[in-house]
Structure formats: structure tokens, C-alpha cells
């Protein structure tokens, strides 16, 4: 049984495939062009919040930019969940760790 976790990560994208509790790969999800494109968009948007060697810090996370663009991220995640719903024939479950967090920003 697979679990698809929705959680943003630097250079990864929001879609995580877990098998037996460990990050994994699964062609059903990884090879779907719609999901791949949406995942890439979340990766690029999320990565844009990171800055390196600025403000005297090794890195900073631009929370203001994340708040400004949270509508875009929420839209991408909604589309991801809709596509996952289309693909799901009972062989995976979805855990969304982002929507509530983003809505509360």
C-alpha cells in the first residue's frame, strides 16, 4: 500500500510517494505527465522562497513571499489532489500536510 504525502520540500516538489513508510518511487505517480508538471511547479515556487548568503545568514526563508503566493501554491496543491483522486483506484491514500498550513499563513 502506498501513501502519497503532500508536503513541500526544497528541490523536491510537493508530491512524496511513500511505500512501507519510506520515500520511494512509483511509476503510476512519477510517470504521470500532469502530476509531474504540477510537482515541478510546486518545486520551483517553493524553492523561490529560499535565499542564500543574504542578510548575513547562510540561508533565509522568505515568509513574506510565501504569504504573497500562497494562493498559487494552494491552487497547485488542489490540482494535484484532484489528479490523484482521478488516478486512485484504492491502491493509495493521500495525506495533505500543506493545505491547512498555507491557509493559516
Amino acid at each position: 500500500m502506498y501513501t502519497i504525502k503532500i508536503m513541500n520540500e526544497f528541490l523536491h516538489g510537493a508530491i512524496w510517494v511513500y511505500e512501507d513508510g519510506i520515500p520511494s518511487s512509483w511509476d503510476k505517480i512519477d510517470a504521470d505527465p500532469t502530476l509531474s508538471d504540477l510537482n515541478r511547479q510546486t518545486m520551483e515556487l517553493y524553492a523561490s522562497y529560499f535565499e542564500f548568503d543574504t542578510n548575513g545568514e547562510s540561508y533565509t526563508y522568505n515568509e513574506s513571499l510565501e504569504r504573497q503566493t500562497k494562493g498559487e501554491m494552494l491552487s497547485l496543491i488542489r490540482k494535484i489532489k484532484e489528479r490523484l483522486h482521478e488516478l486512485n483506484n484504492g491502491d493509495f491514500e493521500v495525506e495533505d500536510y500543506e493545505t491547512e498550513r498555507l491557509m493559516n499563513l
Partner: protein
Amino acid sequence: MGSGSKFHGGLSTRGGSQDAAADSKTVGRSLANNALIKELQAKGARINVKDTLFITKDKTGMIVWLEKGNAKGGLQHILDGNGKTPGHAADFKKAFGVSRQNVPTYIKQVVKNGKLVSNKTISVGGGRLGYERVYYYNGRYHLVTGVGTNGFIVSAYPVKLKK
């Protein structure tokens, strides 16, 4: 069909912070005169020496380092996520048998001694780059690191080898 949200309560970030803080007290001091840190600083990199857990050259020859960090990047993020996401402490335990207090040492070991199987340079907007590096060390899993333009390790996690 399985599309509902699940939010796991009770995820502690305190344990990770305390572990990392304990490590940084000793490691940061010992790194104060480290040649790699001096090399980084000479290039203009902003490394928080007192919070640095390790620094090394990876298989590409790039200087990379892991800091205690916070919810968005570094060890605290790797172990405990952002406060809503679960983090990867349990993933390290399941995949590599590595307990949370040994995660920094394990990451250093793999980055330094593992086989680099993938090295992607990824545009992160504004003309900036990030580096996704995948290592094989042993067993059935890869270790993936997400590294910033300057060598700061934002995240690391195991991934099961493709069948």
C-alpha cells in the same frame, strides 16, 4: 477516495532542536579554525560557524555543510519538518537504522564516502541554482540531499532504490 487531509498531532520539534543544539556546542567550537570554513568565508559564504554540525567536501568537490537550522532548513528541518510536516527522522530510522542523534554523522559519512549516482543543478528562480545530489552508500536506499547555491544543506532524506 483517500483524498482527505490528515494532520498528525503531537509531532515534537523540541527533541531535534535539543539534539542539534547539544551537537553544535562541541562541533561548532572545534570547527572555528577549520580550513574549509575559511575557504568558504573567503568566497563570501555566510556560514553560522557556531551552529555548524559538520562541513566537508562532497563527491563533486563542492564544500557543503549542515547547520542546526530551523523548521525550514538544516538538521531541525530534516528531523522534524516544518512543524506541520513530519520530517525524516523516522525515515532515517526505517531506511538506514540511524537514530535521530546520529543523523548528522550519517549524512556526513554518506556525502563524503558514498557513491554519487545523480547530480542535478536546478534553477530555483531569479537566476539562482540549487543542487540535488543522490548518493548510494549501502543497503537498499539512496540518500538525497538538497543543497543551496552556497553549499548549505537544506534537506536530506532516504529514498528506496528503484526496482
